[in-house]
């Protein structure tokens, strides 16, 4: 068989846990091979073994049929293995070229770095694979999608034949995902092989040839993608049947809870990001905001929640004007907020889960009396929330930092939902989570809706918006450009609307 990489019966232990147990992954030359598993299943550990960051306790690695010991990442590079990390390892104020050559700089005879030569080589590589990267651009000036291509170029520049992509689409917009997929195909055409770490089934179905599934550290098996379907993959991954279509009754919307009129918000650079936006969310409905990242969604949420000052217009919550109130006043007026960036805003990572559970209520009864905190009440509350929302944590005293992404998100949702706010804003609530956690979070949002709460869902995942929302508001260039019924639309139509084209809708009606 023509395998470029074989990882046979790999076992890797850490104190107290077996992260990889008897996992086998064989990569054929010229294929895109998916490595599928839930968060914490051991995907990253396995790839770190391949990349030389960890040494396995058992099993062997073969490259092109020869048994090798990969002792460190340099050795992996020599063997032609390159990794495109999920979190980019780039120096912000260096140029593309400077970043790519970092650590293996070409030198002139006098010992100066030969930046011209490097630029030329990188330009050529970029052209070969259709990456459209400008070698002289500064990292801080280019988009996230471009930065990822710089990471890809970095591995190619070092002569990689096998590229490992670690959840590459987590940070990308739908358009960028599409382009990345094209890039991966052209890499294959040029004779490279790819391992794609992901838990997104759609991507596997679209680009991969074969898929190796691991669950809780164990190798479950390898399947041909053409002979399987998303449902089978999902159940292999989580070990039970998974419901993709979130089940819900029809919405029963009542009075408006959130009324936004003619809202204008400027972003950090004093450019108008929200330009006279109008939006209503009623009790008992989920309104999904669909839009490409950067069309004012972040500014809109920050303006509603009081994190940013808005410039004009009106935001009413249950009839009360809340525009430009402090975040605390807004929260006390009945708003819950699941923030887009859970590490930056949602949690104090160095606080325990218990302390995080009272982040907005610590100064109120029963959690404090005067200025004295009541630890018993705080941790009692935390225990009950942990149980109710199935937050997997060793205890309520564990630091939030120690939890997995899914459990951190569950903790935030527990806290926000428990306050029983009239309006719940959920921004990218399932970003980076696996199907099990996504299912849980969608169910919770719908439960809240059924209790008569108003939910505003902002997501860059069209699937999610289509699946969970009762009404979709399409946001483009700082405005809501269309309101559509999720049952009567599809991704194509939404995609066009999100790109600012009104033709689709008008054409339908005509």
């Amino acid at each position, binding site marked *: 068989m023509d395998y470029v990489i074989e990882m046979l019966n790999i076992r890797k232990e*850490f104190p107290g846990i077996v992260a990889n147990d008897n996992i086998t992954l064989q990569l054929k030359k010229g294929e895109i091979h998916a490595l599928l598993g839930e968060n914490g299943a051991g995907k990253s550990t396995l790839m770190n073994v391949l990349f030389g960051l960890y040494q396995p306790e058992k099993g062997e690695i073969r490259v092109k049929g020869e048994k090798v010991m990969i002792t460190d990442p340099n050795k992996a590079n020599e063997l032609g293995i390159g990794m495109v990390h999920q979190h980019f390892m780039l120096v912000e104020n260096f140029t593309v070229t400077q970043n790519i050559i970092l650590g293996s700089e070409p030198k002139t005879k006098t010992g100066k770095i030969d930046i011209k030569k490097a630029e030329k080589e990188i330009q050529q590589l970029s052209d070969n694979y259709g990456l459209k990267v400008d070698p002289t651009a500064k990292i801080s000036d280019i988009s996230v999608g471009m930065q990822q291509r710089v990471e890809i170029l970095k591995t190619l520049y070092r002569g990689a034949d096998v590229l490992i992509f670690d959840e590459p689409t987590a940070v990308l917009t739908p358009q960028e995902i599409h382009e990345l997929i094209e890039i991966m195909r052209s890499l294959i055409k040029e004779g490279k092989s790819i391992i794609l770490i992901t838990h997104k089934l759609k991507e596997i179905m679209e680009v991969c040839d074969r898929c190796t599934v691991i669950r809780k550290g164990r190798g479950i098996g390898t399947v041909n993608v053409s002979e399987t379907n998303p449902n089978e993959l999902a159940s292999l991954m989580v070990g039970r049947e998974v419901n993709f279509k979130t089940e819900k009754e029809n919405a029963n919307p009542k009075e408006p809870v959130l009324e936004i009129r003619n809202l204008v918000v400027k972003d950090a650079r004093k450019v108008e990001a929200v330009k006279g936006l109008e939006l209503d969310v009623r009790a008992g409905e989920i309104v999904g905001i669909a839009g490409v990242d950067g069309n004012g969604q972040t500014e809109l949420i920050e303006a509603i929640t009081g994190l940013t000052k808005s410039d004009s217009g009106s935001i009413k919550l249950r009839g009360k004007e809340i525009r430009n109130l*402090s975040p605390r006043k807004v929260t006390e007026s009945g708003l819950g907020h699941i923030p887009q960036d859970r590490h*930056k805003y*949602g949690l*104090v990572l*160095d*606080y325990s889960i218990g302390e995080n559970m009272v982040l907005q209520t610590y100064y109120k009864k029963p959690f404090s009396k005067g200025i004295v905190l009541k630890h018993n009440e705080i941790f009692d509350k935390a225990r009950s929330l942990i149980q109710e929302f199935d937050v997997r944590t060793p205890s309520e005293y564990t630091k939030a930092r120690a939890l997995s992404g899914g459990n951190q998100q569950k903790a935030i949702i527990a806290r926000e939902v428990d306050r029983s706010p009239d309006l719940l804003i959920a921004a990218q609530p399932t970003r980076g989570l696996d199907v099990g956690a996504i299912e849980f979070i969608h169910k919770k949002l719908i439960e809240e809706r059924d209790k008569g709460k108003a939910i505003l869902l902002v997501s860059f995942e069209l699937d999610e918006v289509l699946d969970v929302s009762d009404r979709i508001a399409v946001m483009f260039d700082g405005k809501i450009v269309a309101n559509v019924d999720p049952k009567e639309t599809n991704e194509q139509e939404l995609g066009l609307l999100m790109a600012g084209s009104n033709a689709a809708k008008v054409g339908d009606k005509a």
Partner: protein
Amino acid sequence: MTSNNKLFAILVPVISVLLGLLAGGIIMLSFGYSPIEGYAALWNGAFGDAYTIGETIRRTTPYILTGLAIAFAFRSGLFNIGAEGQVIVGWLAAVWVGLAVDAPMYIHLPLALIAAAVAGGLWGFIPGILKAKLGVHEVIVTIMMNYIALHVVNAIIRDVLTDHSTTTEHISGSASLASEWLASITYFSRVHYGFIVAILAAILMWFIIQRTTVGYELKSVGFNQHASKYAGMNVSKNIMLSMIIAGGFAGLAGAMEGLGTYGTISVMSGWTNLGFDGIAVALIGANNPFGVILAAFLFGALKEGAREMPTAAGIPTELVDIIIALIIFFVASSYIIRWALTRFKKEGK
């Protein structure tokens, strides 16, 4: 896991003190002095008799308070290099009230202590408000505030409190922390009631940080300003409050000298170093109020005991300074090593 961590937390500084003593011993040996004699002198200098014990406690007292001043600010993510200046203004304020006010002790003494804390707090408030409102880095401003304190206080001593003299009159007895009884049981050392103030201050810091909504906010702001803002906390207010309270602790340290040890204030040609040593005390005490007490005691004992080493063991004072620096170095670097280890462990997961 937690009990294991606690054992670790105690074991690490103890081992590193021992390592520091060992390194100091090697230095003494290599220069031809007997480490046993040297350390015996150090011990006797710190705990040899009632007098030295009294003096050790006296030295420890302001270290506790400056250590708290650094640790408290650090808990909310601020690096208070200005404890030195806060000590100086606190010292001046305490002596000033001690000289100018005529009142019974139960009013006069608390008033002088409060004046010192307020003066230190004000000295902390200025960098605090500049940081909170304009984003000016507190390290720069607190360093500058140290110089301002030194020279302004010297000018006030010369031109306001005295007529071009270098030392003020002695404060009135009703504002003094000194105690004849304490002096009599310690063979006329300068130990005073200030250590009670320092320990109460440590308990106060523990209470604020661990048990109150104020401390919850301060720590939260220290860990993550974005999440604190999201949670509805006033980040600016907390930065200012933290610097004010920290400055108050340092101001009290000045009062320990002004109302306790000396009863006067003199024109200073240089730093007291109480504030700067407080940085090391806070670091070794792991920014924990009770850790700070122990670290301050270590500092106090080393500094006091070292005075005996040249006379009793013939070791030059310069070498004594090196040995003390080595002990502190090992304690401090163990903290760094452990920090590095835990980080490494985290990333390994």
